[in-house]
């Protein structure tokens, strides 16, 4: 545990996100948990690229030890894609709110059961 403190701490951050996704019924909160999960995965990728005493992978005179650039590239694109998909998730939450009048999972499930699983009973917004 002490030799791998950074990795262990990252994993704890990750399962905190996982816990929020499983335990909370509110959909915006679930997406918050999902973002935390995602950020810690980014960290888990970046951690092994680091070399103690190294510098950022921008070549220059006087430096010879650089961090590995490959995980940086993968995560850089993943962050931007992550926010685009997060926006898509939030859009679905907004549509669910408009169709059911709530964003709590349990209330939506109860709604669908009492309705004979017909969604969209709720108010059509103006």
């Amino acid at each position, binding site marked *: *545990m002490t030799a*791998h*403190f*950074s*990795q*262990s*701490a*990252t*994993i704890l*951050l990750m*399962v*905190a996100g996982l*816990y929020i996704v*499983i*335990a*909370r*019924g*509110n959909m*915006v*909160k679930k997406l*918050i948990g999902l*973002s*935390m999960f995602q*950020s810690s995965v*980014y*960290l888990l990728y*970046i951690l*092994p690229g*680091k070399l*103690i*005493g190294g*510098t*950022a*992978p*921008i*070549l220059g005179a006087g430096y010879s030890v*650089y*961090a*590995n*650039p*490959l*995980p*940086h*590239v993968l995560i*850089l*694109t993943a*962050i*931007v*894609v992550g*926010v685009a998909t*997060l*926006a898509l998730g*939030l*859009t679905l939450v*907004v549509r669910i*709110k408009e169709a059911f009048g709530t*964003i*709590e999972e349990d*209330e939506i499930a109860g709604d669908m059961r009492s309705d004979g699983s017909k969604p969209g009973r709720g108010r059509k*917004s103006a």
Partner: protein
Amino acid sequence: MIETSVTIVILLMLGAVTIGIVRVRGLFAAVVLLGIYSFLMATLFIVLDAVDVAMTEAAVGAGVSTVFFLGALYLTDTVEAPPVHGQFMPLVVALVTAGALVWGLSDLPEFGSPNQPIHQQGADYLARSMTDTGIPNVVTSVLASYRGFDTLGETTVVFTAGIGVLVLLRRRRNGKEGS
């Protein structure tokens, strides 16, 4: 080692923010805490020499995604309902997952050491970038040249997600909702 100790301090701060996010019931507070989480993460990326990633995380995680969350909160609710189910099973699942992953860590080389597999195998972009492309920032040359296919795919995913959002939230011209 200054880098290791700064990393540990920032990770502890991230842990504190995480506890805050898990415990707080107001969604507005949770979103603002998530912005702080992203900024701490960006700081940590700078310590880990990933400057491009840090810049992206600060602009995206703390800036744009917070705006999107607040926009969604404006259109939905800002307070979470109290839990109906017990919180015991999710905790067990999370802890078992954490235990399995931490157990799997024990074989990895130490943080920051040069004998990690990533520094020993794979394409050596650092040595090739200058002669192949003349671009000193290796992240840019890998992103746009060596792995141009990847980036084309990622751009297409951003495009697709944008189209999805527009289709789902667009108002019809005659003022009626699409259902």
